[in-house]
C-alpha cells in the first residue's frame, strides 16, 4: 500500500472496502453458503461471519463488485442451509431451539470444536439474514424464497428458552453441560440481540430482560470523555453495523442526554487517548495507532524485551483503559470506528499504510499486530491471514459511512423497528 498517500480518502476507502469484501468471495463454500472464520487453512465456518457475509452481498451488488444474481444465489444457498440443517439437542447437529452453534464444519455444517450454541453469534447471523430479506425485495421466486426462509429462520428461534430461567439472555448453551455461566456484567455488544429477541412474535424475550441487562450499565467519565463504558472497541461497533443509533434513545440514554452513537464516538476517543498516553510503553502506540479489542494475539507467553518483562496473550478481549493490554492492536477495530470518528479512523488507516505496509495484503488489514514483539518488519508480530469478523465489520462500517446502506435497509426491517420500540427507543428516525 505504498501508493496510499496519493489516494483520496474516497479512493482509499473504496480499495479497503473492496479488499475486505473479497474475503467473503474467497472463503465461501457455494454448497451451503458457509464462510470460514479465518482465511487460515482448515478453518471452520463461523455463523457470525456468515451473518456479515449476508450483509456484505448487498454492498457488493450496489458497488458493482457482484451481480445481483450471484448475490441472490449465495444468499439463497446460505438461507437454505440454515433453514434445513439439523436442529436438536444432540451434540453433532447445526443448532438447537432455532439458535446455531458458533463454529460449524465448512463442508458438513455440523458443530465443531465442541463449540457453544451461541446467542450473540446467532444474532449476528440473523442480522445478516434480515438484511438480506429487506434488500432482496424483488418479485423473482428466488428473492421471494429468500424472504420466506429469513422469516422461517427468525421466527422459530426460542428467545425465551435462551434465558435459562434467568432474567437476561444467557451467553450460550452446550448439550454436554447446559447453559453457560460466564457471568457477563455491564454493556456489551448484545444490544442487537435484545432488539431482535424482544421483537419475536412467538418466542420473545420479556421486556424486563432488557431492563435487567441495562441495569448493569456504567456511565463513566474517562480522560474527559463520557460514555457507556466497555473496554474492547468492538463492543461499541457490532450492533452499530446494522442499526443507526444516532438520535434514537432508550431510557438510559435519555437519562444521560446522549445516544449510543455518541457513546461509541467517545469510546473511540478514549481508545486513542489511551494509546497517546501509552502507560505501558508499548511500541507503535500513538495518535494514529490505537484499537484495543477482541482479537488474535501472539500467544500466551512471557518474554524479556528491552529490559522489561512482557506478557503476551492469544486471542483475547483486550480493552482500554483498564486492559488487558499486551501491546497488540486490532487495526480493523480502529478502522471500523469510521462512522463515529472518521477523521481519526482515516488517519489511523493512512498510518497503517505508511508505517506498516507489509502487513497489508490485498488491501486487507490483518486481525492484529504487535510492534512490541519483534517480527519480520516494523509491525512486529502480525496475525496470520485474516478474520472474517474483521473484514465484515470493515465492509459494513465503511458502507454506513459512505452511503448508510445497511442502516437504511434495517430501518425497513419491521423486526428491528419493533424491537427498538419494545426496548424503549424513541426519537430520531424512529419518530
Amino acid at each position, binding site marked *: 500500500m505504498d501508493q496510499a498517500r496519493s489516494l483520496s480518502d474516497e479512493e482509499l476507502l473504496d480499495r479497503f472496502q473492496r479488499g475486505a469484501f473479497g474475503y467473503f468471495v474467497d472463503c465461501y463454500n457455494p454448497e451451503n453458503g458457509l464462510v470460514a472464520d479465518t482465511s487460515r487453512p482448515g478453518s471452520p465456518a463461523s455463523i457470525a461471519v456468515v451473518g456479515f457475509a449476508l450483509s456484505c452481498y448487498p454492498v457488493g451488488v450496489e458497488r458493482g463488485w457482484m451481480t445481483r444474481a450471484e448475490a441472490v444465489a449465495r444468499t439463497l444457498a446460505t438461507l437454505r442451509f440454515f433453514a434445513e440443517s439439523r436442529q436438536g439437542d444432540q451434540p453433532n447437529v447445526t443448532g438447537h431451539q432455532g439458535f446455531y452453534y458458533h463454529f460449524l464444519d465448512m463442508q458438513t455444517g455440523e458443530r465443531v470444536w465442541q463449540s457453544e450454541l451461541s446467542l450473540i453469534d446467532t444474532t449476528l447471523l440473523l442480522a445478516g439474514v434480515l438484511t438480506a430479506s429487506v434488500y432482496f425485495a424483488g418479485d423473482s421466486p428466488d428473492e421471494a424464497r429468500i424472504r420466506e426462509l429469513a422469516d422461517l429462520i427468525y421466527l422459530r428461534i426460542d428467545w425465551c428458552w435462551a434465558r435459562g430461567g434467568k432474567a437476561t439472555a444467557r451467553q450460550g448453551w452446550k448439550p454436554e453441560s447446559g447453559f453457560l455461566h460466564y*457471568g457477563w456484567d455491564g454493556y456489551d455488544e448484545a444490544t442487537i440481540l435484545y432488539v431482535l429477541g424482544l421483537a419475536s412474535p412467538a418466542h420473545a424475550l420479556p421486556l424486563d430482560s432488557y431492563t435487567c441487562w441495562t441495569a448493569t450499565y456504567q456511565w463513566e467519565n474517562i480522560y474527559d470523555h463520557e460514555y457507556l463504558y466497555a473496554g474492547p472497541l468492538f463492543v461499541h461497533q457490532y450492533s452499530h453495523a446494522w442499526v443507526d443509533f444516532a438520535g434514537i434513545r432508550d431510557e438510559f440514554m435519555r437519562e444521560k442526554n446522549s445516544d449510543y452513537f455518541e457513546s461509541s464516538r467517545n469510546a473511540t476517543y478514549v481508545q486513542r487517548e489511551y494509546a497517546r498516553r501509552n502507560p505501558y510503553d508499548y511500541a507503535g502506540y500513538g495518535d494514529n495507532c490505537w484499537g484495543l479489542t477482541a482479537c488474535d494475539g501472539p500467544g500466551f507467553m512471557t518474554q524479556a524485551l528491552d529490559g522489561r518483562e512482557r506478557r503476551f496473550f492469544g486471542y483475547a478481549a483486550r480493552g482500554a483503559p483498564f*486492559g488487558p493490554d499486551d501491546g497488540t492492536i486490532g487495526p480493523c477495530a480502529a478502522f471500523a470506528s469510521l462512522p463515529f470518528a472518521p477523521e481519526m479512523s482515516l488517519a489511523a488507516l493512512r498510518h497503517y499504510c505508511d508505517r506498516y505496509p507489509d502487513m497489508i495484503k490485498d488491501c486487507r488489514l490483518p486481525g492484529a499486530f504487535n510492534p512490541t514483539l519483534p517480527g519480520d518488519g516494523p509491525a512486529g508480530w502480525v496475525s496470520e491471514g485474516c478474520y472474517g469478523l474483521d473484514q465484515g465489520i470493515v465492509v459494513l462500517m465503511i458502507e454506513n459511512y459512505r452511503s448508510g446502506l445497511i442502516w437504511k435497509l434495517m430501518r425497513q426491517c419491521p423486526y428491528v423497528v419493533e424491537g427498538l420500540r419494545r426496548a424503549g427507543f424513541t426519537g430520531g428516525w424512529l419518530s
Partner: protein
Amino acid sequence: MTGPGMKEPGMTEPGPELGTVAPQDRFRRALTDNVRPPAWCNPTPEGKYNLVVIGAGPAGITAAREAAILGAKVALIERDLIGGDRLNVGCVPSKALIRTSRAYAEMRQAGHYGAQVPSDIDIGFAAVMQRMRRIQARLSRADAAQRLTDAGVDVYFGQARFAGPDSVAVGDQILRFKKALIATGARPLTPPIPGLAEAGYLTNENVFDLTERPRRLLVIGGGPVGCELAQAFCRFGCQVIIAQDEPMFLALEERDAAQLLSDSMARDGVEIHLNTAVVAVRVEGAEKIVDLVSEDARFSITVDEILAGIGRAPNVEGLGLEEAGVRYDIRAGIEVDDFLQTSNPRIYAAGDVCLELKFTHTAEASARIVVKNALFLRRERMSALTIPWCTYTDPEIAHVGLYVREARRRNIPVRTFTALMHDVDRAVTDGEEEGFVKIHVRDGTDRILGATVVARHAGEMINGLSVAITLGIGLRNFAKVIHAYPTQAEAIKMAAEAYHRARLTPSIRARTRRRLALDR
C-alpha cells in the same frame, strides 16, 4: 468481684484449653501470655453487671473498653484467645504474610525499579512465619487480659452460656446483667466435599500454623481472603490454583477491579479456574488428589495442601440462646434490628455473629453503637454507617458506599468519574501505576454515592472518600483541597477535577470565551 489476674490456689479454673497452637516459640508464648494467660484466674462476680460481653474479638473488646471508660461495670468473657480472628487467625497474621510476600515479589521485579535482581532468592518460610508471630505477639500487648483488667473490665475465660434472660454462666459462675452483648464472631464454613475432611485442609484458623511451605496449594473459593492468601503463597514460591464454583471472579466487586486483580494474580503465577467445582478429594501417599469439574470437563490435580475459603458461619452454638429468648439462624446468625437489639430487649449483638459485612472495623463500629444504645438508651442505627472495605491483594481493591448496580437498582441515576493511576505522578515514579479511582456521584449533583479504588495502597486511599460520604462532602470540594504532591491520593483530586471540567458545557465555555475576548 475479687482478684482477677494470675491464678492462686483454690481459685476458679479457666475454660478448656482451646488456645494451643503450633509452634510454641517465644513469640507464641508471649502472645498466649497476653491473650490467654496460662495462670489466669477468673474473677468472682459481685452484683449485677451493666454489660456482659460474650466474645473478646474486635467487637467485644471495643464494647467492653468503651463501656468501662464511661463508668459501666463490665464483664468480658472469652472461650479461646482474646483478640478474636483479627489478631490470631485473621487480619494481623495475613497482613504480616502479605507484606513479606510483597518483599519477595519486589525482589523478583527489582529490574522494574532499576535495581539488580538478587542472584539467589531463597524463601525462608520459617522466618516468614516467625516474623508473623512476632508481630502478633507485639500487637497482642494492647489486647492483653491484664490491660483490659487495668482498664476496668472483668475478664473471664471459659465457655459462656445464657442461664436465663438476664444471666450468663461461665463455668460454675453466674454473671447477672442489665444488658448483654453477643460478639462471638464467626468461623470458616466447611465445604461439603467428599474426602476433604479425611484428607485434611487448611482454613484461616490453621493456615498460620504452617511450619513448612506447601509446594502446591489449591484454594477453594475465590473470595477476598482466598485471593489474599493465594497471591501471598504464590509469591512464596508455591504453585497455587484457585478453583471457584462461580462464573465471576470477586463477584461483588466492580468488573474492572476484578479484572485488574485477576491479571495481576495471573502475572504472579496464580491459576484461576472459574465455574470449577471441587467434587472429591483423596489421599495418595503424601499427596492430595483433587477431582474438579468445569462445565463439561472433569480433571484432577495433585496438591500438597488445600485451603478452603468458601465463607463463614456465625458462632451461635452452645450459647443457650434459646434460654435467653434470642432468635438466630445458623447461617445468617443472630437476628438483630437496625439498633442491633436481639429478640430479647436486654441482649444485643455485634460483629460477625450478626452482620453480613464481616470486617474488623464493622465489628468495632457496631460495638460502639451497642454501647450507646444499650447503656444510654440512644437510637443509633447500623444502616446509617458508611462502611469501607478492602481486599489486601496487590493491587488492593477498596470500596465504600454504593456500587453503580446498587444505585441503579434503587433508580438513582449515576455518573462515574474515573482517574487512572497511570496518570498519577507518584504512582508512576513508584512503579505502581496499575489501577484507578472511580467515584460515583448522583447524576446532576456532586453527591458521592460510592467509590472504588484499585491501587497498591487503595486501603489507605479509600478513607478520605469515606470521610466525604460520611460528612456529606461533595466531589467538587475535593478539587478545592490541596493534596500533597506527589502522592497517589492525588488520583481522588484528579477525579474531582474531571467533575469540574465536565460541568463546563459548550455553552458555558462559549460564554467565558466571549467574556475573555472582551477583556483583551
